[in-house]
């Protein structure tokens, strides 16, 4: 069954760490139009925060002249948030998604970003190409709404 997209938003902002919280506000404000639970909103905020942080730290190595694109798409009972950079890309996505795997332990990265995105969402797709960029697609179903 296909569902109609009820609302959406395409946002572009520079890869500055201030915008991690902005990205969370954007995604959760759009999700709030469906009236999900606070817990579901928390899950989404965390997943989006991980994705945006990864673009800033890993994709662009903190070069804030670069841009991140975020798309939020709202359906009957779920949201899809896509976060994309045009940064360094990931050579081995399967390896990168493993718990505790990180290329940046000096900055106290835990390697848990993808694991958290996965466990706080219902579907996680990662598309990446070296020197082209990375696109992460987070689908969060609001089971509390009991539809579909």
């Amino acid at each position: 069954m296909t569902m109609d997209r009820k609302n959406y938003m395409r946002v572009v902002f520079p890869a500055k760490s201030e915008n991690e919280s902005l990205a969370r506000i954007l995604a959760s404000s759009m999700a709030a139009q469906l009236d999900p639970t606070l817990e579901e909103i928390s899950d989404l905020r965390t997943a989006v925060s991980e994705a945006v942080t990864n673009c800033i730290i890993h994709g662009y190595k903190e070069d804030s002249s670069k841009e991140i694109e975020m798309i939020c798409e709202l359906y009957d009972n779920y949201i899809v948030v896509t976060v994309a950079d045009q940064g360094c890309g990931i050579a081995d996505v399967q390896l990168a998604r493993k718990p505790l795997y990180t290329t940046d332990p000096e900055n106290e990265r835990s390697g848990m970003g993808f694991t958290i995105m996965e466990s706080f969402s219902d579907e996680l797709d990662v598309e990446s190409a070296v020197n082209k960029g990375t696109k992460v697609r987070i689908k969060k179903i609001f089971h509390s709404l009991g539809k579909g």
Partner: protein
Amino acid sequence: MELEMKRKGNLLILKVTGELDHHCADELRRRIDREILRTLVKDVVFDFTELTFMDSAGIGVLMGRYRTVSHLGGTTWFLTEGKTSYFKHVMKILEMAGVFNYIHKCKSLKECGV
């Protein structure tokens, strides 16, 4: 993010409130490490009970301080008796990351031996 640091004997109490993400993690660790080295306390306890947001940056802050403190022969504690609904989310993230294999849970400051 706000950080409140209080010393009680050999224990440094670190209460972090507000939003803990990558944006503020760097400032947080610099301020905490400076205080640990300045006061030469042995143990630290983290109070995350009033956070309104945390992602994996919180894991890094905890594990990084755990390493510093262990190195100096001390213990790292974590207060588990949060009352907010968001605190459950914080615990879920930390449990998932296996943080409590290293950091000791405690229900109150009394348990940290002060």
